[in-house]
């Protein structure tokens, strides 16, 4: 902590009652004060042998993005950056159509064929339309992580609160929370999930959720250790902790665990029940998926983004596309 001083003491005195607008006035309810989240004993995630696949580089997306999580897949589209590091281009993987985006943002939330970023000049891009449709309510309200997008809504994280809103609506619902910056939320409309730091001192980071139709925020995973990097797709939820990668069907609450050293950089990418993640073993970083598709070999592979048969990864600074000869959603 910085030095105590009369000057700082005076400033603190003056700031009493002038708290930042989104700082919770009362301590947030701890996970320990709420009922334990439903959880079954985890089953071992069985990963089948790798399917036949091919891979090719994507030199059009060789430029580093300001947000290192990009390029990434938005359905069959690769969304990436030009020399300026902004998300200014997208390429359709089947047709090869290239779209140069107007008013490109530094970072964004992606869903199938859609890009969403807040800010006056941004909004919702529905590919292949290069123009954003101005949308939504919380323009420039200090997002601390890229938003999550799932039609018809958006979830965004702010200092001391979490927000959800309909893309076409001008009204946002917010709740006090302690979302950790940088980790994006996951959205399974109408429920938003995020990495929460309220109990960090006692048992590390947790995953919390909030269904705005069903009551206040609730703890989803509160085990000791750092649960982080939450992702959602359809009825599936994935996250990473110090044990490995977790997959949960949030209808049945059934859980699967694959023990691995993961979540050290990029989060999991989830396409239906198929999760892909970075894994490091003996100083080597590879990408593996729960359906067996993988990107391994010499050098480090990382930053997975999965949709359908496609797995976008980066090796060195160059993005590569790994394509499974046949891919379909599989039960874990």
């Amino acid at each position: 902590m910085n030095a105590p001083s009369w000057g700082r003491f005076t400033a603190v005195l003056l700031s009493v009652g002038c708290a930042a607008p989104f700082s919770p006035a009362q301590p947030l309810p701890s996970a320990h004060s709420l009922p334990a989240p439903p959880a079954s004993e985890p089953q071992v995630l069985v990963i089948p042998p790798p399917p036949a696949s091919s891979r090719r580089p994507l030199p059009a997306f060789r430029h580093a993005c300001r947000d290192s999580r990009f390029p990434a897949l938005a359905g069959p589209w690769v969304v990436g950056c030009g020399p300026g590091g902004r998300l200014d281009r997208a390429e359709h993987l089947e047709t090869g159509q290239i779209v140069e985006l107007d008013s490109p943002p530094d970072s964004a939330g992606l869903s199938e064929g859609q890009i969403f970023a807040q800010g006056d000049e941004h909004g919702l891009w529905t590919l292949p339309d290069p123009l954003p449709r101005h949308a939504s309510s919380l323009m420039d309200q200090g997002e601390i992580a890229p938003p999550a997008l799932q039609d018809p809504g958006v979830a965004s994280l702010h200092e001391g609160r979490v927000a959800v809103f309909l893309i076409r609506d001008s009204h946002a619902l917010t709740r006090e929370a302690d979302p950790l910056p940088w980790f994006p939320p996951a959205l399974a409309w109408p429920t938003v999930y995020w990495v929460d730091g309220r109990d960090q001192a006692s048992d590390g980071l947790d995953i919390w959720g909030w269904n705005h139709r069903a009551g206040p925020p609730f703890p989803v995973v509160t085990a000791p250790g750092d649960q982080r990097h939450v992702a959602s797709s359809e009825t599936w939820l994935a996250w990473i902790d110090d044990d490995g990668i977790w997959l949960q069907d949030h209808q049945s609450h059934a859980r699967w665990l694959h023990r691995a050293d993961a979540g050290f950089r990029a989060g999991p990418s989830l396409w239906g029940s198929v999760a892909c993640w970075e894994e490091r073993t003996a100083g080597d970083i590879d990408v593996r998926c729960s359906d067996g598709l993988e990107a391994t070999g010499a050098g480090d592979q990382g930053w997975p983004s999965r949709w359908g048969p496609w797995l976008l990864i980066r090796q060195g600074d160059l993005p590569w596309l790994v394509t499974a000869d046949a891919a379909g959603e599989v039960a874990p």
Partner: protein
Amino acid sequence: MHPRLIGGALMATWALGVGLCFVRMEPSGTTAGAPWLAAGAGFGAAVAGALACTGAGGALLARLDPSALDDHLGWLRALGAGLVLWGLLSWPAAALLGVHPWVGSALLILLAAGWLLRPAVRLPRPGPGVLALGALLAIPAVLALLSPITDTDELYYHLALPARMLDQGALLGGAWMPNGSRPLALHLPYAWLMGLGGAAAPRAFHLLLAGALLLGIRQRAIQWWGRSAGLAAPLLLLGSLSFMSTLGLAYADIPTALLVLIATDAALSGRLPTLAIAAGGALAVKYTGVLGVAPLFAVLGVRAFLQPGRGRALGALTLAGLAALAIVAPWWLRNLLDGLHPLFPFAGWQDAGPFVFQFPHKYGMGHSLAATLLLPWNLTMHAEHDSMVFLGRISPAFLALAPAALWAAWRDARARLLVVVALCGLLLWSLGTQWLRYLLPLLPIAALAAAAGLARLPRWAMAGVAACWLLGLPANLRPVLATARSQAPVALGLEAPEVYLAREQSAWPAIHWINQHSPADAKVALLYSWQAALIERPWVLGSVEDHVPTRHFLALHGDHALQRLADAGVTHVLWSRVNFLHKSYAFLDDAAFEDQFERPERELQEALQRDAVLMFEHGRHAVYKIQPR
């Protein structure tokens, strides 16, 4: 008590209360008054510090060198001597009692007790014109003083170290905290001031010292060469970016310059005890003081050698030199006791290979004979404040007055000594790191020499020099005014400090993450990053010069670097991508550049990916959590 006195006291208290309530109950919810209250606390502590120094210095000089208090500059000598005494007492006080605000307060009371001995110090009384001009020129400095910390040197050293020592309650140093092993003759007083008046206090103290320097140089020039010289000498400094840019910040160059000026003045008037105190103090505040101190002793030595009765004169000078060294030697002793090279962190990194603290060839326009001969011209015409080409600017009037100063040196013994010391110092500077700020200790001497030359010019020629000074102003003041414009909203309370920091500091989001979201007991290692003063957690390493602490640590521990950090209790790393450019180190061959710069940075990045967890990233700054194996 007289009823009128009671009424007046009540009225004053009431008025002050109304003012404070006005600020406290601001309906718009802004904290517009907070920076001003912080500045008030800072200035209060700084004025108390300056007055205490003057009292202590006056009492000291009254014993050692009574004639030093006799003339108009007695107050300046007392202030300088008190500052040196403050630094000298600070080490044993901090070592024995810790670095706590109460220790600083006790030390300040002890120094102020010097006034009880009634030293014959007459405080300066500048006229309204001088005060008005000073207030006008001090506006950018006051805005800087009121602003959050964004200056590189304050971030990694000048304010970071005092804050960290206060937080830890102890002296720090060694390879984990290399800046803590420098002589702390100024930075411990900065710590005491910070403990009393917040971050604004050391900045305000620095501003007071700069004001004292300007006033002192004016008084000295008037006394020796008349009013035109008295006007020119301070204006030469005020027309120089390298002087103006740090006025409202807590730096060490101007305090060093003040002590070098006092030493030079003492040498000219034959006051050896004052010379010894000021020269030693200058070295203890910043080693660049040697640029003025070494030529001064050399010139005095030659002069003593040439005069009759040389033995006695040389003996007295040697004694003064030894006394000066005795003032800086405790800091060398402290390093030796800590098992370090006495001059650490400027030397003593060799345990990890051929490490140098600084690459002088990075700076300036060359070290050849031709470059040295052209230095006065190049320094004036080609210096850039934002590149390694001298990293600063000075007024062209220095060069314009160089012939006149040489002429004055021919005719005037005082000017001669000033010119010789300035030229020798310049030569010494040209052999090392040609960073204009390092030349600041010499600048007041050069300004006095130039003022001596100006005083010998006819009025119409003076007008030419004034025109030259004015032509130099835009280039010298533009960066200062640009900074002031950027700082004005936050300094005036119209912009939140966090918004200002996000605008000015690319690392702020990562620092904010650490301050807000890392566990309260987190300990942070700064690898290739330096913004320590903003980090509200205990920190180690940080960057000096070419990221020496990080590069040394990596060279020393190699693949085990992160494990070594974890063993030392470090939980998080603030890492910044540097991407060293070979053209900045063109004097290194490919292999040396790869070995010293590119490979360590690459290997650290690989180690972080291999053994740490990325918790936050923004641009080229990232926070990693270290996983103990």
